[in-house]
């Protein structure tokens, strides 16, 4: 008996169906402060935004992200990157993010909404124990004013990004 290796079209249609469902859900039940929409027709890459949470250095900033979905989503996490330059202990200067649920703690019960909400809370509660940006981790506690200055200095609005 021939055994399929399971990497055929079937799994791709499963991914598309699942993402279609997530899109419907995001549009029917929008969550304030986050948005996401596919940026190509086969839905494997998405563009998302999160609003910086209030009473954090990121307050009133809008941050753009890209989500890249692997063929075995939701059994593997999407690759998520900040497109907006961001100064944060757990994000490097290319926008790569260090967050456990996007790595080994990823679960198939997470979806785009839960990922974006997790990132939003990461902005206000960085994990300074394992920073990608050591300076930011240090300044977070030591010098909030300088931290805020560096955040704003690095930030670009979506309009500036597109220009």
């Amino acid at each position, binding site marked *: *008996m021939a055994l399929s*290796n*399971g990497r055929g079209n079937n799994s791709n249609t*499963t991914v598309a169906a*699942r993402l279609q*469902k997530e899109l419907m*859900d995001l549009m029917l039940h929008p969550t304030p402060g986050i948005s996401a929409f596919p940026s190509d027709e086969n839905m494997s890459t998405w563009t998302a935004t999160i609003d910086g949470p209030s009473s954090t250095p990121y307050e009133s900033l809008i941050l753009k992200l890209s989500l890249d979905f692997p063929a075995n989503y939701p059994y593997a996490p999407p690759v998520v990157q900040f497109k907006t330059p961001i100064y944060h202990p757990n994000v490097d200067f290319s926008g790569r993010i260090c967050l456990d649920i996007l790595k080994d703690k*990823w679960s198939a*019960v997470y979806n785009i909404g839960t990922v974006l909400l997790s990132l939003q809370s990461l902005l206000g509660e960085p994990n300074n124990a394992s920073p990608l940006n050591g300076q930011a981790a240090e300044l977070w506690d030591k010098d909030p004013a300088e931290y805020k200055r560096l955040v704003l200095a690095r930030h670009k609005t979506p309009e500036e990004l597109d220009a």
Partner: protein
Amino acid sequence: MASDDELAHLQKLSSEYEPEATGPLVGERQSSAAITTQYANADPVFQVKTAALPEKYAYFRTCRGDGHCGWRAIAFTYFEALLRVGDVSKFADEEARLLSLGNLLDHAGYQRDIWMDFAEEMTDLLRKLAESLQLMNGVAADILLNTFNDMGTSMAIITYVKLLASAWVQTHADDFTHFVPMGDVKAYCANNIEPSQCEADNIGIAALADALVKPAGFGLEVWYLDRSPGEEINRSFYAEPTDHHQLPIPNAPMLRLLYRPGHYDILYKAGDVPQRIQQQPIPPQPPLQVALASNFDDFVPTASNVGDVMNMIPGMYPSGFGQRWASLSYEFSPSPTSQPQVTPVQPYPSAATPATPVSSSSLDFLIPTHSNPASQYNPVSHHGLHLDQPPVTLPIHPPPPPPVNIERAAPLVIERGGPFRPSMYELEPGFGSVMQAQPFQTSIFRNSHFNTAHFMNPDFQPEEWSPDGDYATGNKGRHKSHSS
């Protein structure tokens, strides 16, 4: 010179490297003698334990070691046990039960619209299998295997059973709180059961036994193969099949897993397997040539001045092969009561060279023995030598404890209908358990791999002559082969 960034990246790649798992997600059922073979050159503890394995667990099935194998093995065997029961209404019962377990998932805080996707693959498979059973089209087992080898569907089912396990642990926190760090079952599930990449651990398996396996009337056991002292694999987990009143259910299907550190496969007893599938195709045997020589003096010129019986045997004299035989201390007698049995320790490096003149000069005795076992008892050849030419070169292993092996080797003779067992790799394990009524043994070589009935002996066929039973063994062997 690489920058720190690059070095960090390389370090990260190297620490995250895992060899890509290969093979089918769930393999075909195969003889568990393959496991014995796999460990033939391993640590002696493994050799002993795996040598004893096929006798109790005749078959096994591999699961791909991609980090999901434990969950996969339980889910697969759960469906397989349902098929073994073969009751169409049981599938409907299980579907209804799983539907009601949705409350458990809701209660654990999982979004219904997300877990429904996974649950639907589970109920879809239940329906497909039930339909196949109802139509009696005989493809249910194939549907099951194919479904589990489809990555998308099988991952959905695996995810569903993991969520079920996680929800069970969280809603039965009292049962598990003492077994998880800090007693925090919620955090434990989030870190050890829910993540897509996490292997089944004891808590997950215990939860699944309670949530999925036992309510279906099945039992679950995990057998542990490691290097701990002992002669057999140990049972590391056991969930007894019980009914609603906690009374044991006799003859309930058991789900059996084989655990090797970091990996799960599926085990079967011979009785777990439906009879029609148990008939494994026997590959065609290359014909074995046996030369029976009566006029051996021509070939062994030194026979007259050496007392060793080896010298009486054509083609067997040490100088003929450049091999040093251990002196065998059995009695040689010209009467048919004692068949000389000589067993080389390893296959002849060049058996053909001295043997060819023997066979060509005594063509009358060139008999395909397996077609006519009784010919061995021909008085003409009773003190002749059986020279065979092994078709394959077999590795030589230090002999494990022998009683097991003798019992396994003997039934093979009957299975084939002739006295020849050309290769130890063709053992039909589990057959031994059926045949234990007549363990094959001889008085002299019982514990030795010189015994032709010993499974370490790659070359010679077992022979038995019983003064009371006359030629009973040979007749029985033929009879069985014709009736099977």
